[in-house]
């Protein structure tokens, strides 16, 4: 089977790449082992949390680009980043849309009671963004081990309450189960009644981000009606229900646009000829299928995604064996403190300005392959709080450049 463009990797950068190519009218195949880090970490869209608090994001970004010429954002440029972000938000029409608070980073409460900077947030989280001015109640659930109301509420000087769900104590509940139950009206009825009992002057109620996968706004509004005060979601630990919503929306849209979706498959081998990739082999025991394309986007992520691998000596790229910038020998990969910016995270694939992989000499290695997402070198996305921004911007930009010619 032949395609105009094959995207390898189904995280946020791969999905953005597929969307961008589909919008350009190309025939697209997207191949993914799993749903990427979206469903692990991405509750909101971080772009650049590491800028002074009241700086407009645009100003912060343009300064960042000046100061960090090797950063993925500098490859894409300010205009490219802005186009990419609006391409992303255009996919999420109300009621579940993404918004910014005054073009600056906003601060959301976390599962550890800290406040965290982020940029684009879904409507279900907006009420939490201005939480410092309010008095709220945090709701947790007994047996849900990834969110503790008291832990969150303490530092905020709020109150926390943990609701029992089961008759038998000691049972465990997962985020996915909770969010499924939340979609059930009678379940909301029950917990709504419980919460009212605990309310004492609070003007908002914060839940972990489990207000349903399919229609969180409906869940939120219904709860507000039942409880009588504003309701919002607080990003919790993995799995990320908001990340699943993003994934599902992309998947639905891409399939409708005719993109071929191969989820649960991984690329076993690639065929290279004269500095060009001809196609990929997808191994699906006992058969192996070959898919060819004119262009490829590599968006396989870092270590968790499987894009990068580390043995005791060096770091390598798993599909094309592309050169990876090395952070020295193993003992130099990580700093002495857990909280250091570890050199290993800055390593990744080196590219030219159009995101084509290059050798250390600067020479392009594969002419029809472009690289997107966190696998790129030159960023510390966790410390910078730039993960989703980098994924969206580079997924968009790599594809724009790939289909431009």
């Amino acid at each position, binding site marked *: 089977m032949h395609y105009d463009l094959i995207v390898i990797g189904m995280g946020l950068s791969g999905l953005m790449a597929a969307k961008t190519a589909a919008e350009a009218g190309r025939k697209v195949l997207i191949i993914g082992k799993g749903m990427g*880090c979206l469903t*692990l*970490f991405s509750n909101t869209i971080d772009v650049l949390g590491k800028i002074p608090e009241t700086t407009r994001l645009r100003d912060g970004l343009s300064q960042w680009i000046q100061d960090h010429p090797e950063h993925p954002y500098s490859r894409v440029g300010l205009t490219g980043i802005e186009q990419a972000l609006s391409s992303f938000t255009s996919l999420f029409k109300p009621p579940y849309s993404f918004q910014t608070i005054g073009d600056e980073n906003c*601060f959301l409460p*976390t*599962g*550890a*009671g*800290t*406040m*965290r*900077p982020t940029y684009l947030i879904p409507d279900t989280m907006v009420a939490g963004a201005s*939480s*410092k*001015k*309010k*008095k*709220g109640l945090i709701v947790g659930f007994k047996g849900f*081990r990834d*969110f*503790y*109301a*008291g*832990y969150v509420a*303490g*530092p*905020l*000087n*709020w109150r*926390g309450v*943990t609701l029992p769900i089961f008759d038998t104590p*000691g*049972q*465990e509940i997962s985020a996915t189960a909770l969010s499924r139950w939340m979609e059930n009206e009678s379940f909301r009825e029950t917990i709504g009644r419980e919460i009212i009992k605990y309310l004492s002057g609070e003007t908002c109620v914060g839940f972990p981000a489990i207000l349903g996968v399919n229609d969180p706004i409906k869940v939120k509004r219904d709860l507000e009606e039942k409880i009588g005060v504003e309701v919002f979601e607080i*990003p*919790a*630990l*993995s799995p990320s229900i908001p990340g699943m919503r993003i994934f599902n929306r992309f998947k639905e849209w891409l399939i409708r646009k005719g993109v071929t979706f191969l989820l649960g498959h991984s690329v076993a081998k690639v065929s290279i000829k004269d500095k060009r990739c001809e196609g990929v082999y997808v191994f699906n025991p006992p058969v192996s299928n070959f898919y060819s394309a004119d262009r490829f986007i590599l968006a396989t992520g*870092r*270590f*968790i995604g499987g894009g990068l*691998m*580390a*043995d*005791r000596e060096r770091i390598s790229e798993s599909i094309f064996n592309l050169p990876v910038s090395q952070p020295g020998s*193993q*003992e130099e*990969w*990580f700093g*002495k*403190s*857990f*909280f*250091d910016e*570890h050199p*290993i995270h800055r390593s990744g694939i080196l590219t030219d300005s159009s995101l084509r992989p290059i050798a250390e000499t600067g020479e392009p290695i594969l002419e029809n392959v472009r690289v997107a997402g966190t696998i790129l070198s030159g960023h510390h996305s*966790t*410390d910078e*709080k730039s*993960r989703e921004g980098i994924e969206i911007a580079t997924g968009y930009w790599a594809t724009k450049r790939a289909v431009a010619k």
Partner: protein
Amino acid sequence: MNLKTEVLIIGGGATGAGIARDLSLRGIPSLLIEKGDFLSGASGRNHGLFHSGGRYVVSDPEAARECIAENRILRKIAPHCIEETDGLFVSLPEDGLDFRNRFIQACEEAALPARLLSREEALSLELGLNPDLLSAVKIPDGAIDPFELVLANAKDAEAHGATSLLHTEVISLLVDGDRVKTVLAKDLLHGEEYLIEASYLINATGAWADQLLKLAGLRIAMALSKGSMLITNQRLSHRVVNRCRPPSDGDIVVPNHTVSILGTTSVRLEDAENFEVTPQEVFLLIKETSKMLPAIEETRFIRAYAGIRPLFQSGEKGDDRVISRGFVLIDHEKRDGIRNLITITGGKLVTYRLMAEKTSDLLCRKMGIDVSCTTHLNPLPGAEKPSGLKDRLKTLGKVETLCDCELVRRKEVEEVLREGKLKNLQDILHRTRLAKGTCQGGFCVYRLLGMLNELGLTEGNSNKILKGFLEERWKGIRPVLWGTSVKEEELIETIYKGILNITSAECRMRNAE
């Protein structure tokens, strides 16, 4: 605060806890003080080998005989702390058979049951062994859980009237003539000071023995030897695997609970407080142990750690009572003219009970009383119900589990908390298997703090505690981060620094005004 006790035991390792138990069973009251938690020194930082004596049978037959005798006693009094795995001494082509022959003969002389296995027999018992091996000798080695063992001793001592002060350090010893008259100690967590009057003092501080004696103007010649170990994420063999050659670096792999522990190295140190596992040691341990079990080359490691062996340099003064080369018991009355001070140091985890017995015997002689030791006859608390992984597995999915790697149930932790006296996070971690598995607490410590918050048991800033834990965890993980572990580390880092935004700077807390 002023305290008075008959006997003050300084040091909460296996020896100190063992002495507290021994004395309590003889009806002699004691107070134990320890600057950390129980097992903060070498007792909690070893490879958990339940010695049969095989490791010393050639080089130090006397120490071996002690091990053999104690091994038999511990099987009776602490079956719940021991896994009888058996052990193999494996001869590789490069080792030749000379040592093996001496080894077998020495085992015979020491009455240590040893059986020579052919290459085929050895390989059929342990599939992971290097197929090039020449032969193996099977001996009754095993694995021991030092945490359960020491805490059971402490518990039994307490049940018989002994008391203890943890996180309390000796600041000064006041010597008046031929006696240590008072001891000034300080609670390191809350700052409270204690003035302790004791008729007798026992220095059971292991690697810190010399430092403590300095406070009384005394010295003993000690050498500190660092031994480093690596933990794998699964058990690599059913039995303890030793190299059949004179003891050297990287010659043992001990299966312990769900993991295997690779050991060890021996590096001289000056300082008993600040040490770490170096990349060279990691390299050496993997290189040497993988000669016995080749899968080690590809195995995932979850932690590196080191302990300090307190080595007593014998022969410094003619008068020392060197009981054996294994451990040393000093009556400072004879040696230095201080009538009420005893030092016990050196030794091995497996001989802790014997060390406690000999120390208590000496003390009784000094006190002029005649009561005999009964610690070898009375089982330790918990001995009646060996806790099994099977029981944990049965409850899986039915009760709330805090630690998925080691199946630690929330109830278990609540029980530990109810027993009380816990002062910090490490205290809880010492008393459960929480955070000892593959993720090294990456997931469960957040849950633990969440639970403590729910129960209203946290004092101060939980995230500061969490940060302290993550830094401590990091020390153990950093030396072995490659392969799959890098994936997990990326996940853990993204959770804490990313989702929860816990950063090195004091956490941003924007309180509702």
